[in-house]
């Protein structure tokens, strides 16, 4: 049998004051419709000073009920209908023992009461509309201050039975063993449109075979970076209720340093890009976009041995020479099947630009 004393130690400080023993409990309402403490113990008949602080961005209250009465009270609170706001969503009921009215973010309120003489499990719950079904906890009134095994404690929300909040968070953000994200198994190639650092707010991250991935910028219409290792952790991004990015789970081996490496006409002509669409070909996205009105198709495959990327670019209706400016540095080794290198850039005739490849092989470390 495992007994958890941790919450008790964290929350209940016994203050000695002459003959009088006051048990002090501090509970916070925190984001995610939860109390930071989901259980505590007090002795029968103890004098209890309970403070609720609202650290969330929504309004909350707290009602302590008779044993087994949480759902009755939650339902009664819902039924207050138009009277709800003025009653702080606290129903008049003998099942309500003590309560803290609605407090708003940043506020706190303290109540003092004498704990019941009858040992038992006394629920506490926020009865603000919609909150009561998941935002609750349990006050254990007992002589011995022992609590049941957390994992099996049916008096606390299921989401909190796994451990304390900090443990939860660290598990959720653990990079390498993300839970199943979809009702199917993803197998490369596949993609996510995401917010990701190092690319515009309209970006497409693509996972390729051989543990390779890249990020394509659908605003600038260019490859921005590529990495090897695992793909992405989208946990924070998908949460929704805060600014977040998809996290790259690998090592970036290539970062584009040129804005608009692909240019049409002269090497200096900065194109005006417009994204059109992508078409999936055997699962690989072929990006279609306009550079100053000229349609470009680009598809990126892994090299057969996984040592880099092969970019196939098609500019089938161009009438001008095409330039591809090499990103300076030693990140990758470039190879081309057409055109010639002129002053740090690949130059292609309109005919050559109808279809050409750029192979980027990771530099040896």
């Amino acid at each position, binding site marked *: 049998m495992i007994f958890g004393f941790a919450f008790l130690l964290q929350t209940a400080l016994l203050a000695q004051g002459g003959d009088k023993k006051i048990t002090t409990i501090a509970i916070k309402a925190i984001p995610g419709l939860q109390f930071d403490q989901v259980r505590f113990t007090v002795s029968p008949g103890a004098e209890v000073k309970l403070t609720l602080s609202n650290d969330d961005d929504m309004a909350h209250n707290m009602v302590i009920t008779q044993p087994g009465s949480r759902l009755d009270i939650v339902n009664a609170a819902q039924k207050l209908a138009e009277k709800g706001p003025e009653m702080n969503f606290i129903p008049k009921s003998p099942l309500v023992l003590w309560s803290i009215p609605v407090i708003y973010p940043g506020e706190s309120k303290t109540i003092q009461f004498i704990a019941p003489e009858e040992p038992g499990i006394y629920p506490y719950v926020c009865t603000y509309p919609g909150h009561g079904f998941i935002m609750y906890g349990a006050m254990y009134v007992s002589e011995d201050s022992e609590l049941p095994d957390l994992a099996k404690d049916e008096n606390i929300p299921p989401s909190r039975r796994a451990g304390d909040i900090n443990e939860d968070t660290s598990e959720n953000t653990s990079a390498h063993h993300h839970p199943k994200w979809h*009702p199917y198994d993803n197998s490369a190639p596949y993609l996510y449109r995401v917010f990701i650092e190092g690319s515009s707010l*309209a970006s497409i991250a693509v996972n390729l075979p051989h543990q390779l991935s890249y990020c394509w910028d659908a605003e600038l219409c260019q490859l921005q970076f590529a990495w090897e290792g695992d793909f992405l952790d989208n946990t924070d991004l998908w949460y929704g209720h805060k600014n977040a990015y998809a996290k790259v789970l690998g090592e970036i081996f290539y970062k584009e340093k040129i804005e608009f490496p692909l240019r049409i006409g002269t090497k200096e002509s900065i194109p005006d890009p417009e994204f059109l669409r992508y078409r999936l070909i055997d699962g690989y996205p072929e990006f279609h976009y306009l550079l100053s009105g000229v349609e470009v198709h680009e598809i990126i495959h892994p090299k057969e041995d996984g040592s880099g990327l092969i970019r196939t670019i098609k500019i089938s209706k161009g009438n001008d020479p095409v330039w591809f400016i090499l990103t300076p540095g030693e990140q990758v080794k470039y190879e081309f099947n057409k055109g010639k290198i002129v002053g740090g850039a690949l130059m292609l005739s309109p005919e050559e630009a109808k279809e050409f490849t750029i192979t980027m092989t990771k530099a040896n470390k």
Partner: protein
Amino acid sequence: MTKARQLLIVLLIGFCVISGCDPKPQGAGATYQVDNVPIPDGLLAETGGLDFLSDGRLIACFTRGEVMIFDPKTSEWRLFAEGLHEPLGLVVINDTEIVVLQRPELTRIIDTDNDGKADVYEKITDDFGISGNYHEFNYGPVRDSEGNFYIALNTASSGGGIRENVRGELRLNGRDGEDGKRQMYSVVPYRGWVLKIQPDGTVIPFASGFRSPNGLGFDDLGNLFVTDNQSDWVETSTLYHVKKDRFFGHPASLVWQEEWKDVDPFALPISTLDSLRTKAAVLFPHGIMANSPTQPLFIKNNEQFKDFEGQFLIGEMNRERIFRVMLEEVGGEFQGACIPFIDGQGLRVGNNRLAFGPDGSLWVGQIEHGWRGDQGIQKITSTGNPPMDIAKMSLTRNGFALTFTQPVNPEGALAIKNYQLRHYFYAYQKKPFDEPVDKTTQRDLQSVAIKDITISADQKTVALVLEELKPGYVYELKLDSIFNQSGKPLDNQLIAYTLNNLLPS
């Protein structure tokens, strides 16, 4: 090869794979039945959009970017599209083509080779701004009879900043104060607007003044209605009748209007803003009717809900509730009342998207996305028991008329004590900086005496006569002890009428 395999994935689901699948007991006389739609293992069923294909299959998109098709006949799910960025709405164009609104763009998604899975993801438009603030959700699309799409763009949250690489022109005067931590804001184009998007992708800024407009819907005459969520400048949640070039009250979006582009809209006198704005057709009293309304869905030619033909059903995030809105034209503008449609009975919270199935059943997709909500899809059908409800609340010259779906017992219906009427109004105001986001004040909250009650010959309509009617007030009516002829009580007892205009005298 791997793709071919994935293509053939058919997710066969037994009923009740999800916990709590059994609908809760719904009394013998219940009007509606709520059933849970089986959700495949591994799907986070946070529903962004719902629609139906011509063969009766449901198509839905979810916040992790999947678009999936559910066949009610076989309970099978299959994948149609994936990888989208926070898709919060979709419409079916035909059985191989849908249009989805995702964070960066309005996208046409097509299965060009008819293998059941989409292969072309084509931009219709991305001609609107993104600041990177998490709260810039995009809602819609809905489509008019000419094929134009309408979308609504959420403002940015005062609870979050913007990123360095915003998309679109940056106008920082769309933010109140330097840190933006006071009101929701609009610093990139058309945040807080409804946009009309022509089939060729041309964007027409349509109407402004929205805060968090998570729901668009048309009536049968092509009138566009949009809901908005309570907080700064929106003292209680609303339903707006959206017409071109109107402004609906949240000032941030004004900076995208040529004549206001250089002003600080938050510093304009309230009287100026008030004179510019169009008031809500219906107010949803906060903490009473709805805290976070979602999509309005118009009831038309629907056998299952025929008592409420011509009205809207609207989802609510914070309660196990879908509510109903009835409108009438008074003084040239729509106004009307809201009343719960279904409360509890196994319905979840987080009711984000609604669609009618081919048989008229109502399908509801839930979402939470970091707020109060839930996951899943539920189906609501009529049990065949006729509703005992208020079919309509309408304004009269000296009060209100209530029409019930069934004849009522006159004894209860004529007793003044069975009607508790209150009125109050909500101020149009700049939210005080230190006031919590979800605090709302009902002003001049007063009980209203009913002078007289009469009942119609068919015993279906009662007329309540009041001493006085005050435009600008919500009239909230709580009914009790009113029964049909066989003693069945009302399904819903709370209704609130938004009185903008009086009938011409």
